[in-house]
């Protein structure tokens, strides 16, 4: 355990030094603030809870941005160190390979969580400072949105590590990372929509739809944050969510499995690999 913390500490230290932490925090804060102020303009004071509007905007932001940041952080984690020659030295120390992987994961997750908490927290602070009234339910929804955003980041960190242990060159890992981002964030949903349109109103078996939704972590995230409550009404996703039998615990478990499986695979491959 100590070794994991030592590695995580070093990742955070490097992240602070090469401005990764600063850059991601500022980026998320700037976008969150922009979205929350622009987002509140059209609704005015028509009774819709303004925090719910922010939740919808920030969820959409998360789906695009957090996977990208996570992949950028993680795709280099193993293959980059191997290429620079620092991995060989690290592995000659009394440290297990899984400790290296989990330590890096923990460090990167801390960076990501810090940036998300600060960035999205800034939006919430800005909202309350304008004197808007926000109900406790909306606060809970906001907090779980931030939590699920970090979990979504963790998934793409884990996928990035898997790429990083599989690839033999940094550039390959980078290319695959971009491809994965495009697939999950854009292509998958477009294909799914296309499929539903092509079905022309024929009922898609609910089980198939559920599986298709669980097959993409960003869709699971969407269902969790936009599928229920007033956010559901705002985003229009409530319709799908009502038909789907996926409950919050099932969706949360799906996100956790999406983290554990790629991370476990990355660990296994790294463990079997010869340095």
């Amino acid at each position, binding site marked *: 355990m100590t070794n994991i913390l030592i590695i995580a500490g070093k990742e955070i230290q490097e992240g602070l030094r090469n401005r990764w932490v600063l850059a991601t925090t500022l980026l998320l804060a700037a976008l969150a603030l922009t979205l929350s102020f622009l987002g509140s303009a059209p609704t005015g004071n028509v009774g819709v809870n303004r925090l719910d509007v922010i939740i919808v905007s920030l969820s959409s932001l998360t789906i695009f941005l957090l996977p990208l940041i996570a992949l950028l952080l993680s795709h280099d984690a193993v293959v980059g160190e191997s290429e620079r020659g620092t991995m060989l030295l690290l592995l000659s120390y009394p440290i*297990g390979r899984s400790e290296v992987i989990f330590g890096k994961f923990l460090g990167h997750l801390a960076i990501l969580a810090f940036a998300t908490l600060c960035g999205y927290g800034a939006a919430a602070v800005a909202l309350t400072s304008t004197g808007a009234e926000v109900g406790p339910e909306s606060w809970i929804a906001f907090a779980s949105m931030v939590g699920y955003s970090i979990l979504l980041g963790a998934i793409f960190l884990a996928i990035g590590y898997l790429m990083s242990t599989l690839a033999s060159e940094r550039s390959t890992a980078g290319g695959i990372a971009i491809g994965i981002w495009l697939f999950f964030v854009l292509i998958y949903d477009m294909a799914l929509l296309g499929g539903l349109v092509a079905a022309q109103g024929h009922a898609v078996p609910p089980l198939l739809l559920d599986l298709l939704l669980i097959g993409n972590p960003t869709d699971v995230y969407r269902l969790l944050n936009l599928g229920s409550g007033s956010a559901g009404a705002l985003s229009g996703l409530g319709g799908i969510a009502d038909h789907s039998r996926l409950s919050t615990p099932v969706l949360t478990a799906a996100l956790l499995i999406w983290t554990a499986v790629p991370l476990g695979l990355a660990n296994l491959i790294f463990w079997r690999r010869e340095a």
Partner: protein
Amino acid sequence: MTITVEIAGVSKRYSKLHAVKDVAFGLNTGETVALVGHNGAGKTTLIKLMLGLIRPTEGHVRVLGEDPARGDFAVRQRLGYLPESVSFHLALTGRETLSFYARLKRVDLASADRLFERVGLAQEAVDRPVRTYSKGMRQRLGLAQALLGEPRVLLLDEPTSGLDPALRRSFYDLIAGLREQGATVMLSSHALTELEGRADRVIIVNRGIKIADGTLDELRRIARLPTRISARLADGGPAPAWANGGSHWKRTGQLLEADVSPEEKIRLLHDITAHPEQLATLTVAEPTLDDLYAHFLSGQETP
């Protein structure tokens, strides 16, 4: 003297490449051993095997009585390693880098700090980012991390390549100090020349096979390399008697050259110098370490 590292019948095969073939040797406490070979001869593979980073296809490796590739890595606590062309994270300072490695080895940070002085890294450089370091300073930092925790076995992969002569010298002084404390030092090199008087033993590998193992003097004796004698005759003198005696003199103008075996050398020199007035100059060139190295390499190619 006890054996600290034992390599017995070790082969390492990658999918296409046979990197190490049936190599066996042992290293003792307080011994400095040089592993010499071309690039790609199998030196780094052997060092990785001793570190337990890769597992042998055949044979077994024992370091301080344990298999370095399995177990709880306790043996790595007492092992120091300096990789070939060592690199560090460029944004961190020398002190941050060393304390990271010290924490991994559970070495207290104060004793880690003292290593900077030992490897000659100036205090003002310690708190600068590694990015600003010269090649020599990075190598010193690399050596400092290898020395963490007073290792019993040190494996140094081409530690002096790219260092200037002054640094090289202080580097070998440091190794001599470690040897006196009883550490086993194995350093790899692609040249024999700088090892004279610095390595107790030399192991030459080529294409994954160990082709020589012994002290430099032993290797010289085994190789029986000839000494080259060249003599320039004084002008106008007659050809001396010894020039016609042996058949292997090569004459170009006034210059006579011959390769002489170790046994004939003394007698021949005696004959030549019996009449000093006949000679203008006399040069005796002993075989260099490069000649010795070339001899062992060519010996393998035509067995």
